[in-house]
């Protein structure tokens, strides 16, 4: 049995979800290193696309990796760099974000960003059959935010649900708090809040509580942070549901890739990890004591 080296490249922990990705990636690497003594892992997290490209270049030229697992921060910018890794004969697994040309990766472990928007929209339609005013707290101005928002807007089209305004809250608690405070100042009538992300939702909830308007509205986050799933499970009125978008998808990708590289287990194609609606009924399935996210 030959030694294999597997490179894992993820974006830096610049918000809660990517923090989760980093955590799960390292945790999985630690675990698999024990399971497969012949496998060496090279892990890097990058703040931006050039850094991430540099990381995978280094993995190829100095660490002689056999396989690469990559969650590209900015897939369009990274497509040709990933293609070069592929062209160098490495096994490539892409996670979460679709590259701008098809057929580069051997394995695609996908989250479903538009699905997150659509799922959320469906819940809003169901919860607000007569329509009403809502506000949207977006993420960072990057493509996945755009995909989620587009799908959401498409989902509520034709209903009486009215988006009063949207602002970037950068998937961040502090900004969620600020933006929500100001929305509350500005709009006397808000029935629903789409925070898109659970970190943002934490901040928004504090703002709503401070204003004493918990009873007027509900809020939907996203990504499935443990603290939020617990709320859903507890039947919190303010936070009736959550939408999963599990950072642990990176673990799946690393496991599959390692199994292939070490054991020659044939894996290929697409694994779509669906974005599902977490409700009080199914919340227990998503609770995980160990997860820091």
């Amino acid at each position, binding site marked *: 049995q030959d030694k294999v080296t597997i490179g894992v490249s993820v974006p830096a922990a610049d918000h809660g979800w990517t923090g*989760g990705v980093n955590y799960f990636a390292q945790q999985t690497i630690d675990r698999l290193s024990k399971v497969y003594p012949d496998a060496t892992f090279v892990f890097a997290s990058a703040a931006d696309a050039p850094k991430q490209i540099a990381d995978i270049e280094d993995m190829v030229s100095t660490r002689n990796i056999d396989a690469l697992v990559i969650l590209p921060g900015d897939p369009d910018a990274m497509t040709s760099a990933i293609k070069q890794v592929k062209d160098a004969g490495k096994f490539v697994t892409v996670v979460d974000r679709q590259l701008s040309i098809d057929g580069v990766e051997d394995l695609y472990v996908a989250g479903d960003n538009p699905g997150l928007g659509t799922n959320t929209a469906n819940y809003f339609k169901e919860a607000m059959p007569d329509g009403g005013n809502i506000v949207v707290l977006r993420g960072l101005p990057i493509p996945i935010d755009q995909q989620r928002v587009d799908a959401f807007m498409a989902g509520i089209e034709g209903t009486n649900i009215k988006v009063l305004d949207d*602002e970037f809250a950068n998937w961040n*608690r502090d900004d969620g708090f600020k933006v929500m405070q*100001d929305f509350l*100042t500005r709009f006397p009538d808000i029935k629903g809040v789409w925070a898109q992300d659970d970190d943002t939702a934490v*901040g928004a909830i504090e703002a709503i509580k401070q204003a004493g308007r918990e009873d007027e509205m509900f809020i939907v986050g996203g990504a499935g942070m443990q*603290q939020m799933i617990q709320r859903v499970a507890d039947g919190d009125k303010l936070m009736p549901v959550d939408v999963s978008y599990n950072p642990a998808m990176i673990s799946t990708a690393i496991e599959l890739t390692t199994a292939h590289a070490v054991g020659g287990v044939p894996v290929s194609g697409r694994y779509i990890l669906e974005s599902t609606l977490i409700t009080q009924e199914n919340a227990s399935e998503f609770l995980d004591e160990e997860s*820091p996210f």
Partner: protein
Amino acid sequence: MSVSAPEVPAKPARGMRIDFKTVGPLLALVLLVLLGISLNENFLSYNNITNVLARSSFIGIIAIGATFVITAGGLDLSVGSMAAVVAGVMIIVMNALIPSMGVSVGVVLIGMLAGLAVGGAAGIGNGLMVTRGRIEAFIVTLGTMGIFRSLVTFLADGGTLSLNFNVADLYRPVYYNGILGVPWPIIVFALVAIGGEIVMRRTAFGRYCAAIGSSEQVSRYSSINVDNVRLITYIVQGILVGVAVLLYVPRLGSASSTTGVLWELEAIAAVIIGGTTLKGGYGRIWGTVVGVIILGLIGNILNLQSFISPYLNGAFQGVIIILAVLLQRGRRAA
């Protein structure tokens, strides 16, 4: 033999002409307030005003420290990351004390002390490297910015450190309550600002900061202990970061690697909008306060309207910052 009486200079009527250097930031503030009023009738509401002031207070308290550092010719880029470390350590300490001390006010108080201590220690580190190590402040604090940021990420294991829920409940009033309807953060900010103004204007330390920023050499020849004064500015900055975080933690009860990102830029911007010169030698605390409020209002106003695409928020912010300083033009670092 004596000399004929010297001509006594007539003092010019000061303040008769409009002094744009002084009035500039205030004018910008007034214009922003008018803009806010015209956009939304709730702008001047008690809630909105306290919201904006309370959430500006973190940057405000930090920026007051930065005013001293910058006036003395220094710079501290590490304050944002430092704030994150302080918050992280406070949360870890408080969570760790619960088993032994239970959920008690004592836990919160020890956490607060730990926060101040970490801030002060970080300030001492920065200050010693700048003064004893003779390394440019920009480099020292760029370095510690990276180091502190890494440290939080490490402490939080890439994720978020959350304060125990029960302790958080106990601590929460420190952000949300206050006296006579004025939230604590605003009160603390005001006290720090008043204290800072007094120290800057009416103590030897404040005078020495300006002297050192103006000319290190002259200060040395005037028997000022330049290194010590510099060091103290960094320590004051560190402690004030600690104070700011004392108010930050009760708000959301968490710290992560994104806590305090870009606070340094915001703090420095506030200081300079307020009329302090970046190269040192002249600082004014009240200007910094105005600068902080201007920056706070910009964000608020952007959230109160819908015509500007949120994509262009940054542009609006940039334009206002430049305009605020344009209003005091004439002043210029030599």
